[in-house]
């Protein structure tokens, strides 16, 4: 394993230390692995977070117009409730705090526990759960769908709404609307290596890719032979459109790289996705192509579609000063 690190136990703290030095607009709380805006505002506080290894998520999305606080867990492990509690405290200005949680049992449990602890301190806290990954069947009984790259668009829209001075209930409403209208589907071509493990978590042969693999290398829906960009766009979009009818609507499209897939390939994939939308009467109002929610050095990509109405389109286009999402 060749990684530019010092000690697997310290990757998160050294990364965030470096991140805060490189971005003077944030402050770093080392005990809690929390990154928060330096300038606070009286507004609804937005807290997100999750396991590390998905950079620039989540710290990169802290900034005016987006999150107030990102809470980092260890690599691929939800941050603990006490860290999230610290995040809530930092985000709170008395107007309530909204937690944006990705749907993994670890995250749900830790964020909910933190919410209870914060409420005991008198902070008003509400939460939303992002579950955009159509690779997994939705279910109320079991854990259900994962939250993946679409979360970044949720951060953006919630952030713009909160920045506008809206109430906690209003921010939550718009955030839930975003979540209801967003779908993603991904695929992986090579594994990633956890710093503490030192070898790949799974193997994909020279002639295999995995459709629907999760951003932590959780299993996907099928292994196929490598496909052309065109066939891949067909496959990924096909799964998304089978789940949600985007026909005739305006959308935001995100083509997200998982880590080691070159931007060249992401743009080629986006080109193929875009070609298929027009004939369906789907209009791309905003496109995002890049590494927004990664899985360490995994190769692969995901496609996300978000249906926009006037409100969501305006919020998506609003300014953002977050280091990894400037608009």
């Amino acid at each position, binding site marked *: 394993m060749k990684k530019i690190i010092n000690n697997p136990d310290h990757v998160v703290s050294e990364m965030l230390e470096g991140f805060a030095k490189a971005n003077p607009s944030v402050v770093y709380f080392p005990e809690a692995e929390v990154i928060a805006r330096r300038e606070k505002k009286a507004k609804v506080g937005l807290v997100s977070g999750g396991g590390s290894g998905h950079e620039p998520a989540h710290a990169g999305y802290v900034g005016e117009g987006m999150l107030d606080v990102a809470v980092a867990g260890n690599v691929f492990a939800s941050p603990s409730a006490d860290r999230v509690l610290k995040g809530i405290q930092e985000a709170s200005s008395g107007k309530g705090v909204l937690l944006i949680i990705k749907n993994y049992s670890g995250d749900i449990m830790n964020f909910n526990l933190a919410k209870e602890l914060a409420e005991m301190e008198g902070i008003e806290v509400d939460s939303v759960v992002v579950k955009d990954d159509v690779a997994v069947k939705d279910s109320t009984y079991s854990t259900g769908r994962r939250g993946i790259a679409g979360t970044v668009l949720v951060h953006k829209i919630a952030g713009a709404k909160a920045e506008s001075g809206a109430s906690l209930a209003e921010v939550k409403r718009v955030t839930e609307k975003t979540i209801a209208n967003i779908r993603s589907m991904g695929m992986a071509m090579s594994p990633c290596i956890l710093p503490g493990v030192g070898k790949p978590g799974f193997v994909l042969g020279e002639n295999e890719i995995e459709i629907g693999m999760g951003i932590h*290398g959780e299993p996907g829906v099928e292994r196929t032979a490598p496909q052309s960009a065109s066939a891949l766009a067909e496959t990924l979009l096909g799964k998304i459109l089978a789940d949600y009818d985007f026909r005739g609507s305006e959308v935001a499209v995100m083509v997200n790289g998982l880590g080691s897939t070159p931007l060249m390939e992401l743009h080629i994939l986006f080109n193929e996705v875009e070609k298929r939308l027009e004939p369906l009467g789907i209009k791309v109002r905003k496109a995002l192509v890049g590494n927004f929610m990664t899985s360490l050095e995994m190769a692969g990509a995901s496609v996300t579609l978000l249906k926009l109405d006037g409100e969501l389109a305006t919020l998506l286009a609003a300014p953002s000063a977050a280091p990894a999402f400037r608009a």
Partner: protein
Amino acid sequence: MKIDAKGYMDYVAKVAQKLADNRDYVTELDSVTGDGDHWVNMDLGFRKLLEQRSTLEALSLGELFKKIGMLVMSTVGGSSGVLYGSAYIKASQAIGQRESLDVPLLAEVLGAMLDAIMARGGAKPGFKTMIDPLYQGLEAMKAALAVGKGDRAALDALRAGSIAGMEATKAMEAVKGRATYRTDKGVGHLDPGAVTMCYQLQVLADCFSS
């Protein structure tokens, strides 16, 4: 057959060793059905406890459990961190002022842990999680105690039950946790959290017996 705070930290050291010996096996299990970090998480937690061994040994038993709960919860994170954290904190309440664990108190403590894990995660026995070995081990242990079979038999029942519970996860369909993302719901694969839970219960029974 009693374990005090110091004895409990000896137990912690033995679990740490048991985990270290099974790094690749446990990692592999979580790689197949989950995200591959379960061993890293557990190892991190137990190493953290050992780092603080001298401080921890000096605590009362109830305080020790509470402190372990807090440390595990905050160091580990993830599903296992919050579940074990909640389990230890609830267990510390069950222990109260008592200064050592005997076998009947152990059953109480394990019961408190089981309740806490189920309450925190919303899972039940049969969901293919760390709950299964704990539940089946504890049921067997309680049954042995109920018919007055004595400590040693109760510990043997705990051992056998937890192994059975762990092994039973292989055939189960996952309802909570990452194995639910598999189209086969993990059927045919052991649950990693059940395996490490089982390790802990085996080592615990051994510590009482020796």
